[in-house]
């Protein structure tokens, strides 16, 4: 378990906190946020390298005032930061509780063949694997990882992701990344940092599906966010009105607010489907289509502006081109309420 309360620190001119969060033992926490907003600083502060105020409870003890060497934290910082004067084996063994662990850890993390090499001769990806093994050699109660996949090429990503996924449940992990896919693939809990503060924290599902604000929804890649007014409708449904448009939402909400629609949840149809109450049909016209590796992204405009994600071949099948009239269909259950308790 990790519980952080009223944590504050000053690093140069940067102010971190106050920060509060709590995650159960074995949680895999991903910290996301734009560069320069304090993600790494938070890790160094938790590790005890920076003077701080507030409490940091790991398990049953508050280590907030403890020197870094007594906190039992493993840390693989950004860029690996291996000790350049030591071999790979000596790096992994640096803080090891049991030197017999060096070899098995090197095998698990795929660096067993590099044990005699000097740290500066490794590639970025190799160095990071060594840094993670070095952090784990401490058998830490809390493992901190700063952009562990940052310097890994495409081919090396999948095996390292599998290694990281295998850490889930073995100990509490905090993993800093700017890559939301990475966070979604690994994390049980998600925190969003902005200007030195943790502006959202919860289970990954909670934060991804019910972001606490429009800014966070947009940061989390929810491109479609609509502003309007909710009117409760029955037991656990609402009507959401934005301009001329009225949408069914399968959640109870009241007053001004926002709904978000994942791009993949927007289906396109040439005609309005048979009216079913659980579906919302929105007549729009195509503004433009952009293609990428994952398929196509269609920009639509009408009473509202929406983006939709399609397979590449659907673009041709539907004859999508600028000016084309189309109906966007969104299931009521796919409309998520943003920023309401």
């Amino acid at each position, binding site marked *: 378990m990790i519980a952080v309360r009223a944590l504050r620190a000053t690093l140069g001119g940067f102010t971190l906190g106050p920060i509060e969060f709590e995650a159960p033992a074995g949680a895999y926490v991903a910290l996301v946020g734009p560069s320069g907003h304090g993600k790494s600083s938070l890790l160094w502060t938790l590790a005890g390298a920076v003077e701080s105020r507030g409490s940091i409870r790991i398990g049953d003890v508050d280590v907030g005032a403890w020197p870094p060497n007594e*906190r039992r934290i493993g840390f693989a910082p950004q860029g690996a930061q291996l000790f350049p004067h030591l071999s790979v084996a000596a790096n992994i063994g640096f803080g090891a509780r049991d030197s017999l662990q060096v070899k098995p850890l090197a095998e698990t993390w795929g660096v067993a063949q590099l044990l005699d090499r000097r740290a500066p001769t490794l590639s970025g990806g190799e160095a990071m694997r060594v840094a993670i093994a070095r952090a784990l050699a401490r058998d830490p109660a809390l493992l901190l990882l700063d952009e562990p996949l940052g310097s890994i090429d495409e081919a090396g990503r999948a095996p390292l992701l599998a290694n990281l996924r295998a850490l889930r449940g073995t100990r509490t992990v905090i993993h800093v990344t700017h890559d939301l896919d990475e966070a979604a693939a690994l994390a049980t809990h998600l925190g969003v940092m902005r200007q030195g503060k943790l502006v959202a924290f919860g289970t990954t599902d909670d934060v991804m599906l019910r972001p606490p604000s429009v800014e966070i929804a947009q940061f989390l890649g929810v491109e479609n966010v609509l502003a309007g007014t909710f009117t409760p409708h029955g037991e656990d449904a609402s009507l959401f009105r934005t301009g001329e448009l009225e949408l069914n939402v399968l959640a109870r909400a009241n007053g001004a607010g926002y709904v978000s629609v994942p791009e993949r949840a927007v289906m396109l149809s040439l005609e309005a489907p048979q009216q079913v109450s659980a579906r919302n049909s929105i007549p729009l016209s195509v503004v433009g289509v952009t293609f990428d590796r994952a398929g196509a992204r269609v920009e639509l405009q009408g009473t509202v502006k929406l983006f939709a994600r399609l397979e590449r071949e659907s673009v041709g099948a539907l004859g999508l081109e600028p000016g084309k009239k189309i109906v966007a269909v969104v299931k009521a259950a796919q409309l998520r309420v943003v920023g309401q308790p």
Partner: protein
Amino acid sequence: MSPLWLSLQVATFATLIVVLVGLPVALALLRVPKPLSRILEVPLLLPLVVPPSVTGLALLWLLGQHGPLGAISISLFGETPLFTAGAAVVASAAIAFPLFLRSARAALEDVPQRQLQLARVLGDSWLRATWRVHIPLARRGILAGVALAFGRALGEFGATLMVAGNIPGRTETLALAVYGHWLVGEDAQAWAAAALLAGVGVVVLALVARWEGARA
């Protein structure tokens, strides 16, 4: 004792003192705020910029019967260390100290803070991190400082003359011998001693270049 042998002994002991005192001082200076450390190091760096005769005068007081080191020596051995090889060691160490301090301090300062913090996070006490990470990562600059200190100690003349005199066989170092031989017209011996000192100087500079070059 031959001047060459005495010089090597004096320079070696002086360098040893310089490193044993200088390394902890350099590490300590890094832990105090910059403006304060700049003030604290002034007396330690002063021998670099004042004439050796001034340092010699200060050492005469320090090692003399009214000075603190002299008093300690009297209580232990019954006499001051003035005009002994010991005084030559102290004079060489005082003159060589600033060269080592500057070089070692710069090298220690260059080690990324993150590496030291990481060593602490990975379980090292401050002392252990200093020994296992800080000093090894600064070793090039520290070694360059050792070479500079040794070279300077070997060539020390002015302060040594004042506190140790120029007693043949007892305190006559190679640097003093150059002057001694020249004074009595033994130009050949003076030149031979001078050539020896210049040769050692070339070796010292080559070592400094090698270590400092590798650091950059």
